[in-house]
């Protein structure tokens, strides 16, 4: 089975007044059809940027993107149109991701109308079907976003993303802004839809519990770099990269009886602007040595478990 989406050495730099900001730096991974790839990392590490570059909302600086085996890195406008029907995005903020001046129906119908594949009548029917699918009452067809609560808004965003039957959806923190009780509803919905339509997700989040729950595979990013990637269960069982370890240990747990060992990170965060080659985590890493000043590369440390750390074997006694 070939990967639905594959990126190779993908880079995205932003020009800023202070210099080149390396938002995504040399990232490679692939996602198989029907699977969910979780992307975790702290704020600003380039998760959203990665997702946006893949679906061509941003141009990549370097590297390649494959979709269904085809190199789509430099898709021409016609290909792009087609591509965008197959790749969609669901946003974090259910407030700013819906146009406040469009009704629920208009928002959901927009991609249908633009695609010109639907007659007015057909578009209405399709919108109705999508609304039913994501569980929004038909009576809300003409409601405006500000009349909806966050959960419902997020459902509208999902319905919009599902229009035209995409194959791949980037979910950019779709539940972070929602309350726990609602969060579970939306996560369940996403899972159901995936099962039903064999959707492929790239699930961006900083909430490790959520990513563990929903993902098949996980990429851990740190300041634009991919530092560790493997199957979801494997990652939580055997986190290898020091950053991943710190990350997992930092999650407060509701298990009040088993206090776990915390790795508290110290030290300042490296600036993503014109970063030096070498490990970007080293300033906060308890294990760093001069070796870490060399550029780090992803290595298959355990079977299908890739880590970008030159000392990973020493640290984990592999």
């Amino acid at each position, binding site marked *: 089975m070939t990967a639905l989406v594959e990126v190779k050495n993908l880079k995205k730099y932003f020009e800023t007044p202070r210099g080149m900001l390396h938002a995504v730096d040399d990232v490679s991974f692939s996602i198989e059809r029907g699977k969910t790839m979780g992307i975790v990392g702290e704020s600003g590490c380039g998760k959203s940027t990665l997702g946006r570059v893949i679906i061509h909302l941003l141009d990549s600086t370097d590297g390649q993107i494959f979709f269904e085996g085809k190199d789509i890195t430099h898709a021409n406008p016609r290909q792009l*149109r087609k591509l965008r029907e197959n790749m969609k995005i669901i946003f974090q903020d259910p407030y700013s*991701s819906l146009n406040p001046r469009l*009704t629920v129906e208009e928002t959901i119908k*927009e991609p249908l109308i*633009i695609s010109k594949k639907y007659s007015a009548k057909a578009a209405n029917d399709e919108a109705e079907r999508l609304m039913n699918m994501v569980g929004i009452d038909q009576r809300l067809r*003409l409601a405006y976003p*500000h009349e909806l609560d966050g959960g419902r808004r997020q459902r509208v965003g999902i319905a919009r993303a599902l229009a035209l039957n995409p194959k791949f959806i980037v979910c950019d923190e779709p539940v972070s802004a929602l309350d726990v009780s609602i969060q579970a*509803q939306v996560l369940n919905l996403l899972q159901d839809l995936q099962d039903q339509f064999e959707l492929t997700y790239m699930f961006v989040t900083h909430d490790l519990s959520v990513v563990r729950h929903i993902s098949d595979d996980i990429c851990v990013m740190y300041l634009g770099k991919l530092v560790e990637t493997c199957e979801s269960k494997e990652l939580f069982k055997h986190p290898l990269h020091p950053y991943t370890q710190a990350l997992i240990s930092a999650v407060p747990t509701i298990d009040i009886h088993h206090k776990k060992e915390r790795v508290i990170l110290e030290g300042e965060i490296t600036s993503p602007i014109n970063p030096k080659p070498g490990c970007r985590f080293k300033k906060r890493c308890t294990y760093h040595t001069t070796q870490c000043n060399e550029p780090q590369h992803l290595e298959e440390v355990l079977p299908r478990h890739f880590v970008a750390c030159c000392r990973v074997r020493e640290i984990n006694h592999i």
Partner: protein
Amino acid sequence: MHNSSAITAITQKNKKQSQFAVVLRRLSKNPSAIIGLIVVCLLVIMAIFAPLIAPYPYDKQNLLNTRKPPSAEHIMGTDELGRDIFSRIVYGSRYSLSIGFLAVLFSNIIGMTLGALAGYFGGLVDDIIMRLIDIIQSIPGILLAIAISVVLGPGFINTLIALGFGAITMACRLMRASVLGIRHQEFLEAAISNNASTFRIITKHVIPNSFAPVLVGATMSIGNVIMSAAMLSFIGLGIQPPTPEWGAMISGGRALIRSCPWMVTFPGIFIMLTVLAFNMLGDGLRDALDPKLKK
């Protein structure tokens, strides 16, 4: 999904009505905005039904009855040519309001387009447009108005253009700022990812969402334009007689401000009322449209 009775009931309603209704409801809670709205409506009614309201034709002269103070026949007195000032004011509302309205419309259409382009595209487009706006703004508005009305000659349309020109900068800046505010909102990205064309994005997503501050600015500009029209008449340009434009009336009568104060005072009061009303309405609109108040 589960229908909780606790959820605010959202009933079927006509499209588009709801937002309008929300704004209207907020407005209705603001007494000064309501007063403003009522006054504006009254003025518009006065303009539309001028022939029914005005007791005399606005240009009916009576050279034997000039400069008469208010009386039963002429409730606001007569002017130098014996014309009924009240009738002139009533008819004048047509010109003053439409000058205000049309000049603002004209300037806002241009200013909004420029501002939207500058804000949306940024970079060089932004630089060029904003420098252009800087240039226009650096030239005293009154000079621009004078120059335009001199180049184009006096007359209603030309006065309108002259007055509107200066208001372009404000509309443009407001629009640009507002567009910049939503430039990075995700619904624009969503539109892009839905293959929406740039034109569609600007017209359907950008402009409707950044329109509010411009609208507020526009209501205030109406007042400013009416005032500038008065200023233009002060310099002797502007609308041609016997058109009873308020600004022309007030500046025409200013030499008689002491012997015949009614000739200046009544049009002055009406200008003031209009500007006041539009500003009150604008203030109210600003509050009503304030996204922060939205839940």
